[in-house]
């Protein structure tokens, strides 16, 4: 049978999946082919990636409904290198996630990239965007370690190029390099990890890695755990491996930030799930505790740092750390529960983590796209210069608010469902064991509550200072509403947030094959009750929510206050007048609360963590009470950079200076090195 006829007889899933990948390839090629006609390159390339995303959505949802597909070679002709690809439920879930993001972000990009015309090479942006989508999709379904590492690397390089797209700014170049270095440290750990697995499996195929952990010695197993945790942790942005993230996200073009935050970070989560649950088998409890602690720390510190940012995109980047932390909490709980022999509860925690993974892609994608629209409309992302945008960019403002509500986990949107599931997993985990370690669960739950409350404060600030009250600068006053395609892109994410919030049963059913694959149990029949409208915590008596119920009841109750108004106050006049200006001339933007002032009380409450430093310089005439000019500078200590990265950095530099002695520049010395190495190797081989 020729490869082509074999391809034709494949099930529809493969066909769709191949066309998804092909669309990304075509998109990249078209973009490069038309670099001169930027408008054409933009439209063709991003439309192509949008179509690819649509095909990916269908393929992955079909796969999730049908269960695992057999492995297949992506390019049947190539025999030298294994392009082994397998769409199993876990991979398909992440393909679903990236495809959703691809559709929305591609549509947005058509409008967004327009402002680069004649300034930057739009073709290159579109090409590498498609390449990133292609590589990242392949990461989720590669089933051969070498192939995985190759696409992993391509993904990192494409992301590096995209982050440094606006490379004229030295800050961008610096952020790009930081991402490059961190990413390769991670890849190094992954290579070591896979080699370790290869040692005992004797093959690089993922099938042979399945439940390999049972054959490893505890030392090997734990080493593998830490190598993969570090390798994937860098990509996911787990604190303290997160330093690249708040630098890279703000400087990248906003559509790229959305893709990176929504999807690229999730490749780290995917990798951890794949390795921990598929390869290494039932984990010891302390792995789970490690993840739970790392997750709690990431969530709390992420939101605390987000709270004090002035740069809107940097704020969102730190908030990504928070959400990665929440996902890790679910994963950690799942590992712990699975080690306690509670597969059903472990599945609940896993479902919570996966649900939050998809949710985060939707609302953080939306928020980054919204920040991009603000940046595009006002040419600034400093929230102290924004304000009043709700009148000038009403659609963006509404969608950004929607994303913020979803992120804060308020009902009835999607963040609520996943956070609720996480709470349930943590609460029920407490009863799963009698040992003292069970205290981890409610403490993590309380930290989750603290994180949630701080996230609410953070996003009141982000939304309120950016979009409400008076514009604080001329740029904000002249702000322009985003173009239609950008609004549609954001709107798609917004719809996803609403859909995932109101109809959780759809996604919960799709997750059955994943929990079946990884933990051997499917829990959606226990989770879904009331004809699909109620989500229960494995049983209605344990607790339940119905987001649709809440929303419809809200609408049912609405006539009560509205009716009271109609009855009594409808005929009273409603005056629109100025806000009280404290008796001064008139209200100016200077009197408004600033973002810095907004987060100041929390900065003081958590000063042990922030270690804030401030400098006030005032020039005054006559007396202290008549200030002529005042300079205020305030900053928080970059703890991890100062205490972890700078010492390591210095040590590496010092070491490399020592090693440079070897590189003397004399040819005969180099020949001598080669000779000695050869001799040593021969002797070593001889004695073995």
């Amino acid at each position, binding site marked *: 049978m020729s490869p082509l006829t074999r391809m034709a007889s494949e099930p529809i899933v493969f066909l769709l999946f191949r066309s998804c990948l092909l669309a990304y390839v075509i998109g990249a090629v078209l973009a490069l082919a038309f670099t001169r006609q930027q408008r054409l390159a933009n439209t063709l390339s991003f439309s192509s990636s949008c179509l690819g995303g649509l095909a990916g959505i269908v393929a992955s949802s079909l796969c999730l409904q049908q269960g695992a597909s057999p492995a297949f070679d992506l390019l049947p002709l190539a025999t030298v290198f294994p392009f082994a690809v397998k769409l199993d439920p876990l991979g398909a879930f992440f393909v679903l996630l990236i495809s959703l993001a691809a559709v929305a972000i591609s549509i947005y990009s058509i409008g967004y990239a327009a402002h680069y015309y004649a300034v930057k090479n739009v073709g290159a942006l579109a090409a590498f965007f498609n390449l990133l989508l292609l590589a990242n999709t392949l990461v989720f379904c590669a089933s051969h370690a070498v192939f995985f590492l190759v696409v992993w690397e391509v993904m990192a390089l494409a992301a590096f190029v995209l982050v440094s797209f606006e490379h004229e700014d030295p800050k961008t170049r610096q952020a790009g390099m930081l991402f490059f270095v961190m990413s390769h440290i991670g890849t190094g750990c992954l290579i070591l990890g896979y080699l370790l697995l290869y040692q005992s499996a004797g093959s690089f195929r993922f099938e042979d890695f399945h439940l390999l952990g049972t054959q490893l010695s505890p030392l090997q197993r734990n080493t593998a755990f830490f190598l993969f945790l570090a390798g994937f942790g860098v990509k996911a942005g787990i604190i303290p491996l997160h330093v690249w993230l708040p630098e890279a996200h703000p400087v990248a073009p906003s559509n790229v930030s959305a893709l990176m935050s929504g999807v690229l970070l999730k490749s780290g989560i995917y990798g951890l799930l794949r390795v921990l649950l598929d390869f290494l088998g039932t984990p010891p409890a302390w792995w789970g505790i490690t993840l739970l602690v790392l997750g709690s720390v990431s969530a709390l510190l992420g939101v605390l740092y987000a709270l004090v940012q002035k740069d809107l995109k940097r704020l969102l980047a730190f908030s990504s750390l928070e959400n990665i932390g929440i996902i890790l909490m679910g994963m950690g709980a799942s590992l712990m529960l699975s080690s306690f022999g509670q597969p059903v509860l472990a599945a609940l925690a896993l479902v919570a983590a996966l649900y939050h993974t998809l949710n985060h892609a939707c609302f953080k994608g939306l928020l980054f796209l919204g920040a991009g629209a603000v940046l595009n409309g006002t040419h600034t992302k400093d929230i102290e210069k924004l304000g009043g945008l709700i009148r000038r960019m009403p659609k963006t403002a509404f969608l950004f*608010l929607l994303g913020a509500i979803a992120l804060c986990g308020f009902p009835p949107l999607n963040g609520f469902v996943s956070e609720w599931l996480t709470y349930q997993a943590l609460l029920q985990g407490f009863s799963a064991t009698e040992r003292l370690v069970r205290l981890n669960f409610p403490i993590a739950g309380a930290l989750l509550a603290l994180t949630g409350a701080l996230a609410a404060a953070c996003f009141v600030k982000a939304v309120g200072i950016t979009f*409400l009250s008076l514009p604080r600068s001329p740029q904000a006053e002249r702000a322009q509403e985003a173009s239609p395609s950008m609004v549609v892109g954001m709107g798609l994410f917004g719809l996803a947030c609403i859909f995932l919030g109101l109809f959780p049963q759809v996604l919960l059913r799709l997750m059955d094959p994943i929990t079946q694959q990884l933990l051997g149990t499917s829990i959606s029949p226990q989770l879904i009750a009331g004809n699909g409208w109620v989500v229960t915590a494995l049983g209605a008596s344990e607790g339940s929510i119905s987001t649709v119920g809440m929303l419809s009841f809200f609408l049912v109750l609405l006539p009560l206050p509205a009716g009271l108004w109609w009855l009594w106050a409808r005929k009273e006049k409603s005056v*629109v007048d100025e806000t009280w200006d404290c008796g001064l001339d008139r209200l100016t933007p200077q009197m408004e609360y600033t973002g810095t002032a907004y987060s100041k009380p929390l900065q003081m409450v958590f000063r042990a963590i922030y270690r804030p430093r401030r400098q006030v310089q005032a020039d005054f005439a006559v007396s202290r009470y008549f200030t002529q000019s005042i300079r205020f500078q305030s900053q928080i200590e970059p703890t991890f950079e100062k205490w972890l990265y700078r010492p390591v950095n210095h040590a590496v530099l010092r070491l490399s200076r020592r090693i440079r002695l070897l590189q003397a520049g004399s040819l005969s010395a180099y020949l001598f090195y080669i000779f000695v190495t050869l001799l040593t190797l021969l002797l070593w081989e001889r004695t073995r």
Partner: protein
Amino acid sequence: MTLLPILLQMVLALALAPLVNGFIRKCKALLQNRRGPGILQPCYDLFKLLRKGTVVSQHASWIFRVTPYISFLTALMVALMIPMITTVVPLSLFGGVIAVVYLLALGRFFVALAALDTASAFGGMGSSREMTVAAIAEPAMMLSIFSVAITAGSTNLSQVVQTTLQHQEQFLSPAHILAFAAMFIVLIAETGRIPVDNPATHLELTMIHEAMILEYSGHYLALIEWGVALKQLVLMTLLVNIFFPVGVGSAFTAASLATGLAAFLAKLLVLALAVVLVETSNAKLRLFRVPELLSVAFILALLALASPFIF
């Protein structure tokens, strides 16, 4: 008949919420050797405000106008999700205690946004402070609720009350008392009472909640005030009913409703008196001392969870 419990509880909550406020104000006045307004005064205020026109800032957006509705309706919905006089909770399937906390947070989120909407400095100040206090109060509240929910093995409030009713010997267990104390501190903070906030002041530099709603007037203000009163009632109900569910009826019959109502009112009365005593015997704390008070609540709740291992 499922409509009857909903209507009954709705009417009860809507009527009782301002009355509790009136009662607390009256008792406070008596303790301060004043006569004070009648218990019904908050109801008269609401009634009057509801019939008034509004003044809206020209800088305000639609958020300012929808916020009163969201704040009022989330509070009312929450009032229907908790057991008051019977364990038959009207909307028990829609969400348990976590949904209650998050719905209240949603209302607060919008009020805090609306405070920023009018471009006044007071609004920003109040909003920032309210979110700060809430951020520290919420984990303590969650943790103390967890300790009860874990004992009951459920976050469904009707289930929690039923389980606690069956184990009345636990009322005096250390876990129970510690969690109750934590929750009481949270109640003081969340309802903006002395020593955290002073509900009777419009003195600009110390106010938290009042600063946020300074720009509201007319029926908008009425809805916000009513919502706040409902939220206070909800928190007080949670406190009395999940920790001491004595007398909560287990069936939906006239007799059980009557005893349930009597017990509920009696418990509310005692709790309100406790709040009055705390308010009268304390001075308002400096804003940056409030976190210390709330971290005490957090530690107490943590001890409540750990107490089975300690005692």
